[in-house]
Structure formats: structure tokens, C-alpha cells
């Protein structure tokens, strides 16, 4: 390649190296979707409590949602 074209090709290549790094996180004004209630991790409070209770009863041997159980004093 001639010297005339090398420099311009290099400049364009360097700019395109940004490539996938050019994808930026959502701007503050683009977060409308994230603000919707459906996007929160919680849902119906009663359903949450029910799920938590079920989980705790099944995981009771290892402490449920609290500290690991065991009962032998090892933790």
C-alpha cells in the first residue's frame, strides 16, 4: 500500500477499534423502561412473603435465608 493511503487507513482503523466498546450504558434520560414497576425485583408483597416462607422451610437445614445452620457450633 502506498504511504498516502496508509495513514488515512490507519486513522479509520483506530477509530473503528472502539467497535463494541462504543456501546454505552443507557443515558440518564433513556431509563424510562427501567423505572417501570414491572422492572423491580419485588412483586406482590404477599407473594414474596409466601415464596420466602417456602424457601426457608426447604433450606432450613442450612439456615434458610439466614446464617448457615448445622447446630454443631461450627459456625
Amino acid at each position: 500500500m502506498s504511504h498516502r493511503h496508509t495513514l488515512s487507513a490507519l486513522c479509520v482503523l483506530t477509530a473503528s477499534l472502539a467497535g463494541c466498546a462504543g456501546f454505552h450504558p443507557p443515558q440518564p434520560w433513556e431509563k424510562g423502561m427501567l423505572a417501570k414497576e414491572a422492572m423491580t425485583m419485588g412483586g406482590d408483597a404477599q407473594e414474596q412473603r409466601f415464596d420466602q416462607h417456602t424457601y426457608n422451610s426447604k433450606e432450613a437445614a442450612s439456615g434458610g435465608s439466614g446464617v448457615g445452620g448445622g447446630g454443631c457450633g461450627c459456625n
Partner: protein
Amino acid sequence: MIRKSVLALVFALGTLPALAIEPGLAAPEFTLASARGPVSLTALKGKVIYLDFWASWCGPCRQSFPWMNEMQAKYAAKGLQIVGVNLDANRGDADKFLAEVPAKFTVAFDPQGDTPKRYAIKGMPTSVLIGSNGKAIEVHSGFRADERQALEEAIASALAAAR
């Protein structure tokens, strides 16, 4: 004839982000649609402008509207113009918000998000207090009840300096 290498360099530099609005910098010009015709910053030159970027999904914006109505009524005669730029992608959401929380100041619409990008705002809501010389005096992110006093004082001193 521009050399190809210079042109390529200019294109590469074009990808740099906008300079964020800061106190002392000239506020970037914009022209946006509103219910009462186009709103542009140059047309409002000479007034102290409280530019507020808001959206219907932003909780603190709901709190700020009654206060902004109060400020507009109180200081309009002294040369204050509050401009609320709506950033909802969906105009219906904005209209629904305004039906619930009416605005007694100018509301412009920027669904493309071009103006906040040029101002490089960092949060929602963001308010920019622009002096009568077109330069930003104060940039404020968020809105809380305990910030009203300080914001009002900033407006009052900007109006006093403009006279």
C-alpha cells in the same frame, strides 16, 4: 483540497463525547417544539432561564413541578423564564403527566434526547440555571424538598445580577 489523512483524522475525532455543561460555560443553543410553537434559547436571551430536564417516569420531577410553578409566578416579572424540556420517548406519557401535574411554565419536547446529550446531563432531573448572558450559572441534579431554599436563592441572585 483536504488531504485524505486529515479528513480521516477529523472523522475519528468526531466520535468524542460532548463537553458537559458546567457553570461558566455557554449553554448550548436548542430549538424545540412546544404546545405554543418553537422554543429556542436565543429567543429568550436577556432572561434568566431555569432549564429543567424532566420525564414522566421520574419521581422527583413530580415533586418539582409545584415548586417550579411557584417560582415562575413569583419571579416572572423580574425576568425569570422556566423551560421544562420533556425527555419522554412517548409523547402520550408526557401528556398524561401534565394532565395530572399541570405546568404553568413553558414545556418543550425532545423525544430524541438530542438536547440532554449536548448538555451531557448526568441525572434525572437536571436543572441548569442560565444567566441573562447565556452562560450557565448552576447545574443541579435531582430535586429534594430541602434543596428548594438554596435553588430559590440561586434564582434570586441570578435575577439581581441580571439587572
